[in-house]
């Protein structure tokens, strides 16, 4: 004689898998490939990131306006944000302890990689 609890569990276990639509696989495949392309471009560019740190103020001639692309991007998820917070704390420590540009560069590169590339180079 099965208990209601066992019956319930049995029903849940018997639930079939839901098949995702084929379009999802295509969409993810596309996202994967474009992400790979961005990463390859970013790997080269990121090596130069620290060189720009000194001229950031000069470039900030106008306020950064959130482009429509940025505004409608889904919010950076929690894991990423936690990583960025950790990275920023590490970066701040490095600056407080007078680390060299070379020592700090990998941290900036990691930050750039984490935050993706919200602005397309063609928009510049």
């Amino acid at each position, binding site marked *: 004689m099965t208990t209601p609890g066992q019956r319930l569990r049995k029903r849940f276990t018997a639930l079939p898998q839901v098949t995702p639509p084929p379009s999802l696989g295509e969409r993810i495949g596309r996202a994967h490939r474009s992400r790979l392309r961005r990463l390859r471009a970013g*790997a080269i560019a990121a090596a*130069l990131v620290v060189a720009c740190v000194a001229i950031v*103020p000069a470039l900030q001639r106008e306020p950064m306006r959130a482009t429509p692309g940025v505004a409608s991007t889904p919010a950076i998820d929690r894991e990423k944000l936690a990583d*960025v917070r950790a*990275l920023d704390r590490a*970066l701040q420590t490095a600056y407080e302890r007078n680390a060299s540009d070379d020592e700090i560069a*990998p941290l900036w590169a990691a930050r*750039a990689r984490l935050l993706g590339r919200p602005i397309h*180079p063609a928009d510049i």
Partner: protein
Amino acid sequence: MATLSNIACVLLLAGAACTPAGATMPATTAPAVLLSAAQDGALDLGAVIDFRRVDVEGVTVLAVTPGGLGERLGLRAGDRIVAANGQSLAATNRPSSVLATALSGSGAGLRLDIVRDGQRRTLSGALDGQGPVADKIEGCGHISSGGTHPRATRDVFPVVVLSIDGDHKLPVRSGYYRVDAGRRVLVVRELIDGQRFSEFGLKERARQRERHGARLDKVLIVDVQPDTSYFVGAQTSRPISTSAIRDNSYWEPVVWRTVAESCR
């Protein structure tokens, strides 16, 4: 025409200076109620500030952490902070302490005098007592660069840990580090066996090291759980192509083993 350095700058700016849609932070002194994200009692501004270079116009903000106090205050990458709660950051040897004092919550508010695009502005907000304590977990764990790396089976080789959480002066370079639980940011350098490379590859790798030095090191963020040890290493691509050596993409830092191990 976008040059490579422009792209890189945009990467940095884009990472640092995006304000969320709809966040119309007034540049003047309308106080907003803020929540404090307390870390060890003192407030974390949530920004990366260049304390290495102080000039008459204070210290430069290099990046603003998304969702942090600085962002909510309206701080942006490129801003120069001149004073915090009336205390000048420009005329001191220890600007980071001045800022820390201002942030330590004495008084009900935080006021930053900044320079942006050549103009002076004030950012201010009221501090609301408690807020979500971000990322703080009790306990400790270990990071190890030792162990028997699975070279043949999983292409994982040794690394040396150069810094943890931005601190390059690690207590003892033993390769076994006790760390607080939570997200730990490691910078590691690969120590991949020479045999893994072709003769040409080895030369190329040496040339890259000569030219770029510590910039070739990579970050690994380990979410340390209490009483757990994490073994880190460098995983290589297979094969290791010359172009991969040139763009430093032939290896990635990985955690290759996790072990429950009590930590006190």
